[in-house]
């Protein structure tokens, strides 16, 4: 036991150090070195790394509910996308008169749909802080309502998984509708600036990478602290023996609800960081398959470890980036095979493998 704990800490610390390196050294390098220097990282690298970090944050949020609380949420992508939409709405409002039709108030797609005024739910999003509040509030409230209903009536196991899937599927269909006022299938795109900075500028990109990294580190440390508090231990106990915890007098549904809402908020933040870095948010983020993929990242990395989720998210997405370029015709075979092999042979994911190796080298 001791060894595992030690090993776990060791990998966790390594992950933290690498994260810190990525999120500080790369942006700093780019700020101090000229564009043609070998130390200068291309915009491509910066934006791809930034994307990985937001995915890692998303994976982390799922690991919290799945790995520690045993709720296999197949709709985590919905919270991610909602956070993304909140940020996207702010970015849309920043476009102002620079849109295609030059309307100072309405985004292009609303002008196009002949809307005369801004719908009420778009109000306030011109304010950055309001948008930021919504980034955590909207996913949080949705998770609260959903969780309050579901956990109170003791929906568990596959039933819970499938209705989270139904939730994200319903949202996918809803956001897809043009009448909803979120840009339909095209979603929100063509952003110009964030807090007055040109969204395509190198400095902002570096800054976003840094912010993503710092957020990830902070959330990681926070989660690590959280799972070691009394609350965290109760949550883990719920995962392992829900009815026993209930008989001990704990209000299981409140613990579940709390952790579910918290994780949804993290997913929302991840979404908000994701959107300015990829430049588009559209309903495909709600697709049930996307949410499934998040589960895969966590499973591959190793669930219930937090850093496993980070490793899994980065690795799967990195291999996707590489494989789709290297062998565009057959990369799905490789990815599919990896999913199968990891689940069958590495039940604890890559982290489990690393831990075993570490233990061996210590004994």
């Amino acid at each position, binding site marked *: 036991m001791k060894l595992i704990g030690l090993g776990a800490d060791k990998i966790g610390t390594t992950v933290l150090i690498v994260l810190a390196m990525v999120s500080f050294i790369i942006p700093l390098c780019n700020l101090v070195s000229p564009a043609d220097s070998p130390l200068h990282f291309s915009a491509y690298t910066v934006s791809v790394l930034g994307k990985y970090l937001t995915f890692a944050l998303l994976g982390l949020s799922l690991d919290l509910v799945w790995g520690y609380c045993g709720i296999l949420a197949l709709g985590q992508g919905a919270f991610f996308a909602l956070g993304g939409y909140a940020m996207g709405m702010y970015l849309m409002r920043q476009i102002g008169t620079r849109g295609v039709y030059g309307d100072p108030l309405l985004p292009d797609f609303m002008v196009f749909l002949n809307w005369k005024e801004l719908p009420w739910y778009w109000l306030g999003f011109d304010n950055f802080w309001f948008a930021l509040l919504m980034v955590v509030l909207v996913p949080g409230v949705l998770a609260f309502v959903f969780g309050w209903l579901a956990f*109170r009536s003791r929906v568990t196991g596959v039933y819970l*998984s499938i209705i989270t899937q139904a939730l994200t599927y319903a949202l996918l269909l809803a956001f897809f509708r043009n009448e909803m006022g979120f840009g339909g299938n095209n979603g929100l795109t063509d952003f110009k600036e964030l807090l007055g900075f040109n969204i395509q500028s190198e400095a902002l990109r570096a800054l976003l990478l840094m912010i993503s990294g710092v957020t990830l580190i902070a959330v990681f440390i926070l989660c690590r602290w959280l799972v070691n508090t009394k609350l965290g231990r109760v949550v883990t106990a719920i995962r392992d023996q829900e009815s026993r915890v209930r008989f001990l007098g704990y209000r299981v549904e409140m613990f579940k609800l709390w952790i579910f809402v918290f994780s949804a908020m993290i997913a929302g933040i991840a979404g908000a960081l994701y959107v300015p870095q990829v430049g588009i948010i559209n309903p495909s983020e709600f697709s049930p398959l996307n949410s499934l993929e998040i589960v895969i990242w966590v499973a591959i990395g190793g669930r219930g470890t937090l850093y496993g989720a980070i490793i899994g998210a980065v690795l799967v997405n990195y291999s996707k980036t590489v494989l789709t370029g290297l062998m565009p015709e057959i990369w799905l075979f490789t990815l*599919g095979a990896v999913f199968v092999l990891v689940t069958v042979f590495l039940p604890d994911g890559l982290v489990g493998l690393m831990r075993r190796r570490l233990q061996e080298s210590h004994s």
Partner: protein
Amino acid sequence: MKAKSIKGYCRLAACLMLVFSLAIHGDQDVSKQQLLLNALTNLKQGSMAEREQAIIQLADNGSSSLTILQALLDGQLFILKSDDSLVIGADNNQGYDIRDAITGTAKGAVERTDVGKINLTNKLRVSLRKIIGQLQLSSDDPAIRLAAVKAMGNEEDESALAILKAREGVEKDETVKQAIKVVFLLKDMNSSDKSLRINAIDALKEVNSLDVVNRLNAMVEKDEAGNFVESDIDIRNTAKAALININTRLQLYSSIETVFFGLSLGAVLVLAAIGLAITFGVMGVINMAHGELMMLGAYTTYVMQQLMPNNLAFSVLLSIPAAFVISALVGIAIERGIIRFLYGRPLETLLATFGVSLILQQSVRSIFSPLNRSVATPEWMSGSWQVNDFLSLTWNRFYILVFCLIVFVLLLQILKRTSLGLEVRAVAQNRNMAKAMGIPTSRVDAMTFGLGSGIAGVAGVALSQITNVGPNLGQAYIVDSFMVVVFGGVGNLWGTLVAGFVLGIANKFLEPFAGAVLAKILVLIFIILFIQKRPRGLFPQKGRAADS
């Protein structure tokens, strides 16, 4: 190229001229022949208006040219390239079995490239159908006569009406007679004689015809200035009364139609979900590759059709066992190769089978290309059962509904009455106890998974008849399938059946008010809320197994 095709047209014209000179027995009038030649040349080369003209000229030729015209309409009229003769070809899938268009003597089979088809456009088809209708009005088959009346009835062509009038006198079949009567009643509605009009309206109110409804609706409408289109108040009132009468029936039939739509959508959902109900419900395996197993079934249908191109109807029937076997084998391979290592970790089966689904999808893409494959619908499954003008039920949906029920009953019987079924139920209830009683659980697992997968394959055969056969087929149904199983209650086949039909009908009743997308969203929200109320679905599993 251009010159060549024009030469082809000339050859065609010459051939057709020959045909008609033979057809018009004894009529050696050179000018008439010249006229026909012009008509035929125009038919192929002229502008739209000229072609129309040509068709009318051809119509005067009488019933002797019926076979050729019918072949032209059916796209079976060809020019044999070797001797420039006009032939009628029947598709035998490698090529055509041809016979001479004029004499009717068989000329053997030819390759597709040996003949040039005479193409048609819509306008030509419409004209042809009219002419053929007139020529067929004296056919022996009442169904053909009825179709002929329908084809001719919609026009204000006086000559067509005259032919119909003549037919009415000699017609024996009641339905056909009624149809002809409606044509003239509709005409009477426009007459200048008021009493004739009122009588016509009165007579028509018992008729189930959309033409009648539209005419009547037009009578009671107001124009833009706010005045009634129909100035005579008596006629308006008669029309209104008749409309009330008809609309009650219309509403009744449209509800029947909606229920049928719902049932058929439900049948598709049940078919897609019922295999999952076994693997997911009985075994606790979350099989994300379920959709891809359906896809395999659909592709099996495609392959079967390629293997036996001459017998479309039979090949679809034969696809059912073939698809069952293939999907079942793939399913057993998945179970033996992957899932058996994952028992006791149900949620992880989701991940592994998701990987499998990616692999299966990409395999199909590599083998069959990413394009959709064309699966033909056999004759007996196309078209619809026209109950009356207000209600028609499409055959393919009808058969799928029947098929779904057959599959369900069979499955139920397998689980209830066979020894495999007994073992499956035993393992599902208590795996360890079953094992202790000497049931070979691992074999039962494999068989159960094979059964569920095989049924997915069979569902794929049904889906191939209504939707795309392509690599994405499975993905389109997987989420819905899970919803149905969970809504019905995991581990309960009756639950799946009821859930499928309920969701299908709910969807179809919501659709007219909410639109297709909103209806689906509402159904999903309903499922979410329903699960809060009954956390284990419509028909919850009872006993110890329910706790896992």
